């Protein structure tokens, strides 16, 4: 019976430490996942922690300094805009109107997101668009 108790004790210790890792991980690396409008209209955006925004690149707002490299653009969800600064190379599929996901810290005064990660969603061009109707 002794080994059974020991087994339970060790298992609890393992499960406890994994739970701790997960909870502290969420607390320290969790990102507020918001829409552009939610963040732009927030009276007092959460002060701590990073942000993750989904939206589109506003057409005509992209400024790219390839030498730095630095990428500046406005992100929109059709209602509001948020500026994004990304210190990295422009992803291949990036461009005005494209859907992007950015992660980083938010500067409420400048209404700007300092992105550490920028992912361009694959353009839906490769999906059924403009091919017309099926033959019935």
């Amino acid at each position, binding site marked *: 019976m002794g080994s059974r108790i020991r*087994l339970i004790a060790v298992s609890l210790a393992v499960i406890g430490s*994994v739970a701790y890792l997960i909870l502290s991980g969420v607390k320290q690396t969790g990102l507020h996942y918001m829409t552009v409008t939610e963040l732009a209209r927030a009276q007092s955006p959460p002060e701590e922690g990073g942000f*993750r925004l989904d939206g589109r690149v506003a057409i005509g707002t992209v400024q790219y300094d390839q030498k730095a490299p630095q990428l500046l653009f406005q992100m929109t969800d059709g209602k509001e805009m948020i500026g994004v600064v990304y210190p990295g*190379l422009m992803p291949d599929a990036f461009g005005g109107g494209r859907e992007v996901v950015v992660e980083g810290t938010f500067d409420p005064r400048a209404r700007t997101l300092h992105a550490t990660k920028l992912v361009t969603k694959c353009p839906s061009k490769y999906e059924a*668009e403009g091919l017309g109707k*099926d033959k019935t």
Partner: protein
Amino acid sequence: MSEIGRLSVLLAFLCSCFAVVSIAWGLRTGMAGPLKSGRRAVWMVCGLTLLAIIVLERALIARDFSFRYVAEHTSLDLPPMYAFSSLWAGQEGSLLLWLFVLSAYGAAFLWSYRKRLDPFYDAVAMVVAGVMVFFTSLLTFVSPPFRILATPPADGNGLNPLLQDPGMMIHPPILYTGYVGFIIPFAFGIAVLLMNRTGTRWIEEVRRWTLFCWMFLGFGVLLGARWAYVELGWGGYWGWDPVENASLMPWLVGTAFLHSVMVEQRRGMMKTWNVALIVLTFELSIFGTFLTRSGVLTSVHSFTESNIGPWFLGFILISSTIATALILYRKALLESENRLDAVVSREGSFLFNNVLFLALTFATFLGTTFPVLSEAVTGAKISVSAPFFNRVNVPIALALLLLTGAGPVLSWKRVTASVLKRNFLIPVFVGVLATLVGLPFGLHGVYPIVCVFGAAFVIATIVMEFARGIQARKDVAEARGAMAVVSLVEKNKRRYGGYIVHFGMVMIFVGVLGSSVFQKEAHGPLLPGESLALGPYSLKLRGVENKPVANAQHTRAILDVSRGDKYLGPAYPAKAMYFKSQQPMTEIALRQTPAEDLYLILGGVNEDGSASIQAYINPLVSLIWVGGIVMVLGTLIALADRMRLKREEKLGA
């Protein structure tokens, strides 16, 4: 032609429905006739799906744009090999491939057991047919691949440039062979519960099927990482992206199962647990398909968004409910025959192995679905990304690494102090030695140190096990050197194959450590004649040139690469502009050596004629790929072991 495709999918649907009903009837009444025709119907599904694939492939290669699928995913300028592989570029084709792999597994299963007249195997076939009903109905009613356009366009939309890569040609079929293959273990598990099957023979059978698809899944995951590395052009190979996680999760649970199943074989313990693991592995592979197809989560790998998400969720819900109900209903069958004697024992180590693998899976699942979960629970959407996964999964993975060394040298039941001393003294010493050697080379931080210690520790235990095996067998010991190792492996393929798999895994750990902790980066704009220094490398820009390649225009920088004083030759990082999509694509330049990779990206060419170059040194990445190949070889050796199956047969279980 399209009618033939549509008709064969519809007939495949009817055949799978018939197979389920007919086998169920046969099992209920004990009549051989319905069982036989049910099995035949499963064969029919396989043939019909193959026919459907041939029809679609013919259209893809001929660029018959009257097929909607062909017009959506190919174009006239697409090289024929990518026209062939665009079968799995879109949803309908991918599902068709899924169904084909599924029915091929069904056929392979029936072929393997064609001489066994045991209704148990018919029950397995019935479960497989049940899953076929789901996929054929999706293809018939929800996502039909053979839609015809009223006005065929002159040219198609073209294939996504990201998918125009040789790795992407083989990655999905291999991954699917892994994913889909878990249907057989799942079907075995359900059939055991349905038929109230006792004995251990089925466990050995399931172990072999699982090993087979587990190997493909692991290899597929690594191919995906390799594709991300050379094609996505961000310098890394793994980003904890939802789609990557989706393929990792069934692999993790499958690995847990492959370990705990040994406890069941040896000691008759953990029976409920094992059936639950089989079910979970299968559900996670369906969940993986759901994640890549549903568009619920954002991913760099997800190329289609569609409406079939709810169907998959529904299928997962129904199948896991049935499985859970059956497990509860057959509780008595799954009663454990033994109790755990000691925590420090082989069984104990397998138990912790399982706890840790499930913890990894759980953390990965939680992290992947966190936005959805947190919104449901607290109302606020919280998302986690790579830092979370690294923080949580790295320590768990390191604990598993240590266990990889400790587990196999612990004896069953209980371990004596002298065994501990004999088996652990030298490996611990080797581990400490490796760490001490690493310190002057910039090894620092808790996790890297644990990783180096663990890697050396595991390798030492493996080497000792081989050495001991050779000594213990006189006939083996008489052979010399490498021959002794070969003949030892031949004696117990399963055991030593397993060690080889462990060795491959250690290589992957070291590769991940090297490339994540010791990566170096440099970037800058270079005018012709200027150089960029990165570690021991010097990259001198010779110039920039434009060059048309097949269906794209390449703009490439010519860099003269030197390491120290030694000139290594030119490298050509490029940007490709695809004519069809007008989308730029980064084509990296990669110089691979066993010690390190030089990874070069062309950011673009500037107005003043300078080229923006980003360069990485990724140490030890090649160990990841080689480790993957070693794992496949080890698994193949373990699969070649038919001894145990024969022994079970003799026992007449």
